[in-house]
């Protein structure tokens, strides 16, 4: 009888390993075309969120419909069998908790406040409808990817540092460790994706059924119940994660997982109070303008808010980005980092290019290739570089700081920025000058200047500038292709 559980555990192990392995290959810069976004494209929360916020479900995100179809037939199997964050929590619960049977029975009972996740879902979706997409903060796939790749991997020797990643790591670790006390606490009470799937699971064809004539009400079925869905009493199918632990636990073999079983009378609904739900909706509508009250990048361009190449204009971008961190993992140079304050409160954890961490590789288009919601559009190398004859995709413009630049300020030869500049012809060129040095000798210098019409803002000049900490040439967002109002030069952009 334990075979159902073994198969479920095998599935869980497979999907967890697949998730971690894909993330690791992505971060390692594996050039092979693995399906890096397969989990994120099947995420109904991202699909619903972008549909409400941006009015579109981009590209392969339609696979989310397949997951909903699966849920309509089998219930929340995603939570119990596929979700990497769910598996991690179940593992932590299994490994770290030494509960007695009595304690287990108590901890796996349904609590009214587990309905919190439905309020969270409502708040996130109403926020999306009002134009701010925050589902990624609590989406288990975004959360797991972010916490693993940006929070924990930098700790591995040779790992790339990610400033601010510790916040993501703490959140992930906290969620996983909480299962030591309450199994799958995040799934039960907080997960907005679980709540969304729970809505559809209420229509599920297959569900857990307790044969009441055989049942002796011994409560053994509830000892290992992952979803706290009370298979003993009036089973809550919206909470059930189909872990199937209750099946072999029953000594009377009264539990079954079957198609169209009789429903308990009356069927249990989520414990939602209309008053709280209406309050949640109104509060969410009120919070959206508050998130924007600090400014962000919506109304006025921000100098250091450099978005990855191909990113949509800020408003459209914030309607699509689910903060999954895949672009950050995909970036070969480590240029893409979390925004902490650069993009306002709304843009917390959205990707920004930080040239001192890495530069935007001239012909690289990986970030757009892995973006599951097309917040960063897919570019071809020819389109990005402008080799197709149209203006290149710019993310900003470089400015020389003459007070720090070696030739400009110190009369010391240096050509690094010009040497690195990838455009053709180079955006950085030299002004030749002869200056008198302190000792009276004449010194011939090449002072770098930026041709703003050529610069694409890739930031390799800033990254490689030998002036430590604050570089002597820095990129700001002006001139970025994505924002027609954030321009430097009048007239058509030249190639």
């Amino acid at each position, binding site marked *: *009888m334990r075979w159902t559980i073994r198969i479920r555990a095998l599935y869980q192990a497979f999907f967890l390993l697949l998730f971690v392995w894909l993330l690791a290959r992505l971060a390692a810069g594996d050039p092979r075309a693995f399906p890096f976004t397969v989990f994120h494209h099947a995420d109904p929360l991202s699909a619903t969120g972008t*549909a409400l916020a941006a009015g*579109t479900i981009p590209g392969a995100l339609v696979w989310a419909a397949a997951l909903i179809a699966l849920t309509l*037939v089998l219930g929340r199997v995603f939570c119990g069998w596929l979700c990497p964050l769910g598996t991690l929590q179940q593992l932590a619960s299994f490994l770290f908790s030494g509960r007695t049977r009595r304690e287990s029975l108590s901890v796996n009972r349904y609590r009214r406040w587990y309905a919190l996740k439905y309020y969270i879902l409502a708040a996130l979706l109403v926020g999306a409808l009002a134009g701010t997409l925050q589902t990624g903060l609590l989406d288990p796939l975004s959360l797991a990817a972010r916490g693993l790749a940006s929070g924990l991997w930098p700790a591995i020797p040779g790992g790339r540092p990610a400033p601010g990643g510790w916040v993501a790591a703490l959140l992930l670790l906290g969620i996983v460790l909480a299962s030591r006390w309450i199994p799958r606490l995040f799934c039960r009470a907080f997960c907005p994706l679980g709540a969304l799937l729970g809505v559809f699971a209420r*229509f599920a*064809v297959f569900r857990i059924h307790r044969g009441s004539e055989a049942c002796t009400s011994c409560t053994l079925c509830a000892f290992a119940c992952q979803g706290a869905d009370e298979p003993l009493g009036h089973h809550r199918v919206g909470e059930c994660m189909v872990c199937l632990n209750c099946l072999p636990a029953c000594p009377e073999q009264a539990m079954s997982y079957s198609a*169209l079983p009789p429903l308990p009378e009356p069927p249990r609904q989520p414990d939602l109070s209309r008053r709280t739900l209406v309050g949640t909706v109104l509060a969410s509508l009120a919070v959206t303008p508050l998130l924007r009250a600090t400014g962000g990048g919506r109304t006025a361009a921000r100098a250091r808010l450099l978005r990855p190449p191909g990113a949509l204009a800020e408003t459209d971008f914030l309607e699509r980005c689910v903060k999954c961190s895949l672009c950050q993992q995909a970036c070969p140079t480590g240029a893409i980092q979390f925004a902490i304050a650069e993009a306002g409160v709304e843009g917390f954890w959205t990707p920004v290019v930080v040239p001192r961490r890495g530069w935007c590789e001239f012909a690289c288009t990986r970030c757009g290739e892995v973006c599951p919601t097309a917040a960063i559009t897919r570019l071809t190398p020819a389109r990005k570089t402008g080799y197709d004859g149209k203006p290149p995709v710019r993310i900003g413009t470089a400015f020389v700081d003459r007070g720090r630049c070696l030739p400009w300020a110190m009369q010391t030869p240096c050509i690094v920025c010009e040497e690195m500049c990838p455009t053709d012809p180079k955006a950085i060129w030299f002004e030749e000058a002869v200056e008198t040095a302190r000792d009276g000798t004449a010194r011939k210098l090449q002072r770098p200047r930026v041709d703003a019409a050529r610069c694409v803002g890739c930031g390799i000049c800033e990254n490689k500038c030998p002036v430590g900490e604050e570089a002597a040439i820095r990129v700001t967002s002006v001139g970025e292709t994505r924002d027609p109002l954030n321009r*430097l030069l*009048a007239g058509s952009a030249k190639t």
Partner: protein
Amino acid sequence: MSRRVEPTITRREALLRLSSTVAAAAAVGAGVVAFHDRRTVTAAPVAIPDWRTPPGGQGPAAAARGGDPATNVRRAVAALGGMDRFVRSGESVLIKPNVGWDRIPEQAADTDPNVVAELVRLCRAAGARRVVVADISCNDPRRCFASSGILAAAGAAGAEVLDARRLRLVPAGLSGLAEGLEVVEELLRADRVINVPVVKHHSLSRVTIGMKNWFGVLGQGRNRLHQDIDMAVAELGATFHPTLTVVDATRVLTANGPVGGSLADVRTVGAVLAATDPVLADAWGAALLGHRPDTLGFIAQAERRGLGRADLALVMELGTA
């Protein structure tokens, strides 16, 4: 295996439950079909309309002189055939004065309020359904519209006075140096547009009169146009074709333009020109400031583009009333 638990539901209940599942699936499917890769509808940039009326038998410009600005306006417009020639009954008119600065009329940095108010009255008398006075100021819009006297005067004459706080900007698909700039939406909704500049010295383009006045309908980033001011002004002249240009030379600012401030820089001229030729209008104003029109880059470029003729002999001088 377990002891078989026999389903005990009726066929009717099974069908009902299956159909609710199928209905949920269909709803999701319909949502996906409706939303998949649906491009968010972005309105195509609206083309800037041509607000000119068919030419009449009159000349391209008439200048009236005298102590009362309102009389000057009436006489100059009458000499071109009267406002009835330009504004028909039921049309909506946008009047674009220069309200760029927080200055009082005596400082001559903004269009004289009497000139604007008289134009509003003429449009109203011609049967205009709606008269809007609008400008995007450089200083605080509230202070500009109040100090210049235009809010009070034009409002009393029956116009809707809109400053930057109440003007919506829309992409307009402008080309050339103005590429990417947004324009005031009211402009696109007006049937007729009257440009009402004031004659001023300008530190970069040397004078600012009519074609330069179009800066005031442009949104954020318009200061980029100073990168090649003469070409930019000529391009604006080729983009915006007003029904009428009414040049206010009640007072002209002769130095420290376009902001001015000192009354010593202001010269009282007491003249108003109405013109259907915007290049001639600018040439006439430039001459008041002592410039030969062909020495000004933007006038020369505008003439080369065929936007009008900078021949001062074409101006009908009506003299003092």
